């Protein structure tokens, strides 16, 4: 008997018992549909976050204080960054400027401050940033009213939308004066709402680094900066530049790989650390859904055992006319594999529909071709593995016993 004959025999047998076959397939359909739709949520989440990060652009590097061995939160700005005492200074920023491939270097110095408006005082985060940030990171910091900071500015601030609206009894308008650390500042710009962005600026007050130094005075060490942001040249590889920066700073700060007290992150390294988290979420959800598939596999095994029992005489006849054990094994493996495969294809389609439906109601999902291909292949494997023991049982039947089976 050729392979196609064996296949035809299997299909014929399956459609004979169509109710049973369909119910068995339904089990696989449910399992695969659950896996596809849930894993697509994990992918979708990853895509959603990466899209947020893309607002930094791929040619972006940030440097923050603290040991690279301790996690520093999403942007290295965690309050627990100081598990190893260290600060960055303008000297570091200057050193980095000389690294090949670095286009521009910006510093951020931040602290909380009392901000007075019309006699009311509220504490909020105040940051001194190089004005170039507004130009180079215009995808994540957008001005809604007024203008951005410029290099020649002095005693002016740009503020977050939420801080402008909600912090005082009366909304802060353009041109108004805020008193920060006994110095008067004029509001020249109000930023767009940044809700959901990885770099929320809604409650921030931005001023130039010089103004920040005046205001913060003794609160910071001399020349201290809290973060250094770098734009790399178009076409240069940020990973290579990040590596060069790390070596350069180790040299100027007199630290080794072991005692390194600063962190260098690129857009890609941030994305990969986020990918690790969303990957774990996908794996966990997919794993739970896979339990359903395992139950579906048990259903296939059950159906196949029954099929073998019912067809004991058929098997006897086939063996008597010369079918080898391998042929019998193949007949039953094709049958169980086919049930898995059909279930997988229908389940993959159903899961895709579910995933698209969820996307339509706002849950971020992403259907990757790999996922769909994997689902179908996996269901085929589950079908064949589940059918293995019943098929072996069939293959090992003795022709005489099988024919004598009533």
């Amino acid at each position, binding site marked *: 008997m050729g392979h196609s004959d064996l296949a035809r025999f299997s299909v014929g047998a399956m459609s004979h018992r169509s*109710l*049973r076959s369909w*119910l*068995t397939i*339904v*089990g696989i359909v*449910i*399992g695969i549909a*659950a896996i596809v739709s*849930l894993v697509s949520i994990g992918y979708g989440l990853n895509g959603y976050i990466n899209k947020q990060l893309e607002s930094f652009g791929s040619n972006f590097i940030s440097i923050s*204080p603290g040991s690279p061995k301790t996690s520093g939160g999403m942007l290295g700005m965690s*309050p*627990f*960054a*100081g*598990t*190893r*005492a*260290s*600060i960055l200074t303008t000297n570091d920023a200057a050193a980095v400027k000389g690294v090949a491939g670095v286009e521009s270097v910006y510093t951020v110095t*931040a*602290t*909380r*401050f*009392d901000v007075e408006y019309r006699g009311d*005082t*509220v*504490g*909020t*985060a105040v940051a001194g940033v190089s004005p170039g940030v507004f130009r180079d990171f215009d995808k994540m910091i957008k001005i809604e009213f007024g203008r951005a900071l410029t290099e020649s500015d002095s005693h002016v601030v740009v503020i977050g939308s*939420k*801080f402008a609206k*909600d912090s005082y*009894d009366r909304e802060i308008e353009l041109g108004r004066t805020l008193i920060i*650390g006994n110095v008067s500042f004029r509001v020249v710009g109000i930023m767009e709402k940044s*809700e*959901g962005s990885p770099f*929320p600026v809604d*409650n*921030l007050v931005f001023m130039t680094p010089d103004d920040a130094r005046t205001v913060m005075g*003794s*609160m910071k*060490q001399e020349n*201290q900066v*809290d973060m250094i942001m770098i734009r790399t040249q178009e076409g240069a590889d940020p990973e290579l530049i990040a590596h060069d920066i790390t070596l350069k700073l180790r040299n100027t700060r007199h630290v080794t790989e072991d005692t390194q007290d600063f962190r260098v992150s690129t857009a890609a390294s941030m994305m990969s650390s986020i990918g690790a988290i969303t990957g774990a979420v996908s794996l966990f*959800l997919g794993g*739970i*859904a896979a*339990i*359903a598939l*395992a*139950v*579906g596999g*048990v*259903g296939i*095994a*059950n*159906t196949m*055992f*029954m099929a073998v029992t019912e067809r004991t005489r058929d098997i006897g006849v086939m063996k008597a006319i010369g079918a080898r054990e391998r042929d019998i094994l193949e007949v039953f493996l094709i049958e169980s594999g086919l049930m898995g495969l059909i279930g997988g294809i229908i389940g993959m389609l159903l899961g895709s529909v579910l995933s698209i439906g969820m996307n339509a109601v706002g849950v971020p999902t992403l259907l990757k071709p790999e996922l769909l291909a994997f689902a179908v292949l996996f269901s085929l494997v589950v079908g064949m593995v589940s059918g293995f023991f019943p098929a072996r049982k069939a293959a090992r039947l003795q022709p005489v016993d099988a024919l004598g089976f009533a």
Partner: protein
Amino acid sequence: MIMGHADLFTYAVRGLLSRQLRSYLTILGVVIGIAAIVAIVSIGQGLSQYIQNELMSFGGDYVTINPGKMEDYASSGPTVNMPATLTENDRKAIESVGGVEKAYGQVTDIGSIEFHGEKGSGMIIGTSVGIWDAFPIYKLREGRFYRAEAGELVIGAGVADNVFKKKIRLGDTMRINNMSFKVVGILEKGSGITSAFDYMVMLDVPDMMRSMGRAKTIISYEEIDAKLVPGSNPDEVGVAVEERLRNLHHVSEENQDFTVLTPSKINSLIGSIIGTLNLFLGGLASIALVVGGVGIANTMFMSVMEKTREIGVLKALGATDAAIMELFLIESGMLGLVGGLLGCAIGLLISLVMNQFGVPSNVDLQLVLYAMFFSLAVGTVSGLFPARRAARLEPVEALRYE
């Protein structure tokens, strides 16, 4: 022929036992589903219990007030970004509300820390003197707490032992934002919620304000914690505090610019988050049970088919449709129930093993009973269509079936 319920039961069980392999495989499907549900839900409950225990360490008689609306915390992320709109006036007003014993203000910032020439930056937290008496979460490893405006501070165990090359000891001098302070106490290494204190420097609010160059008389807080008079009801006090602050800030309930939380509010908030998560994960695990149910239906359809002649005989002997229906429902229900029993046992075992590895899990009788009931229900429902098919067979047709 009149068959009693007991007869039907015996008959059904004998039917199951005669097709052992098939019955076991069918049951296995239910076992996997129920075990997954029991294990996952018990871990969810354990987690919820763990968090509630952690919260208990704050004691039960407090009210905490934060600036901004509740929704702001979800959208703006870390509280460090929240403007501190609560003032010393607010703190005094809260202290004057009936039922409040004392109100403590709190400010946090990231500041520069210097010790023995080594510089770093870290979390600085200013809290009113005495907060440690009101909230038993602050525990000293050595030394004492700071006095009011005395230039003293207390540091977390991590700051003392790990942050600087040289370990910090009691009596040492540290510079915070370029102002000198004397270390008078070191906190115990924290666990759970209190591990947040490990890398923190704690000092008196006016001292902190001064070090931050905020020498003004107006102090703004990011959080005010009110310790209550023993025996007072936190929820009632919470409502009173809310009313007082609304009056003071000239706001209505809709545009309220602060959030008042009580222990019961925090508990129900966390309870609802974990409950939703539990429902979601339990729901996912239930998919496996649904597949198990399909397996039961499949097995029962086959069993009905195989027993067509028997059904014919029973009917010819006077068995009613209801009796036949019952016969098969008992059979499918048993498949579900036995699967549920074994599934519960395995699920509990998984949950116990997880517990050994430090995953909090909590098994209550309610969950077990629910799982058993659910498995019985799944078995019965899955058997409904096959049983109806059996009950509706015409005796004559059935007897003729080959």
